């Protein structure tokens, strides 16, 4: 079982990386890009036999306290 966590900058926070990548894409000729947001991807391998619901609760807590900073970032947690 794996948990996949995607951390992205909050919309209100200026994302100079996203803006720079967007500009580079435009320069390369990729048009139609409205916005780019650069974040992080964290993959966590869970030990065999882990209870999925319990893992979700624990990881949600970890995302909130540690893996993301709620002041500047949003996260999405998926377990499969």
């Amino acid at each position, binding site marked *: 079982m794996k948990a996949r966590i995607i951390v992205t900058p909050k919309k*209100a926070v*200026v994302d*100079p*990386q996203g803006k720079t990548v967007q500009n580079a894409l435009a320069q390369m000729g990729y048009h139609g890009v409205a916005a780019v947001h650069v974040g992080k991807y964290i993959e966590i391998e869970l030990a065999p036999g882990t209870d999925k619901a319990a893992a979700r609760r624990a990881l949600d807590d970890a995302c909130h306290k*540690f893996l993301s*900073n709620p002041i*500047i970032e949003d996260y999405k947690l998926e377990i499969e």
Partner: protein
Amino acid sequence: MNFAVLQFPASNCDQDAVHAVQVLGHRARLVWHKEHSLGDAQAVIVPGGFSYGDYLRCGAIARFSPVMQAVKQFADNGGLVLGICNGFQVLTEAGLLPGALVRNRDLQFHCEYVFLKAATAQSPFTSQIPAEKWLRLPIAHGEGCYYADETTLARLQANQQILWQYCDQQGNLTDRANPNGSLLNIAGVCNERRNVAGLMPHPERACERILGSEDGRLIFEGMIAALEGASRAQAA
């Protein structure tokens, strides 16, 4: 006075902070991040560097070090804590200071001198900075852009928790004088109780004329004056 200077893996301004305190005629001791106690320290400096390689986010891992529990308790008891650069990032991650520090708006690491204006003298960290005196201090950071949501910013302004702002040589808070895109040109803030502060510039690198500026002394002298005032009050 006795200062504790924390030392995390990849702190690199810890020795500078100890030196600055000694130049000012006081004692400083390095406290390894695995220690659980700050000993007899009367003030704490969380120094600059790249604690834990800045992995995940700057300061995100250091805040879970055992010594940070002691720092939190020390701050809760009213002790003076100053975070410099990475130390500022650690204190925001630990929730001891409001807001967060994100990537500089131009994505560049800035290593240069800046001017700072103290927005208030009402704190142990700014009390010795004369009005109309702009501090000339070095910065060296890639993630110093101060961010807080609008509600928090309004609260910081109402409570005069913004301690230092980037300004030009004439003391104007211009966008050009802002090296990293910080909201309201914020270079440093304090908590509501005014005993914990953080700033991105490095006062510890500006305490001797040979280093190009002595303006950093004013910040430490403020802390020392507050501590001496407190010990006089205790003795009386």
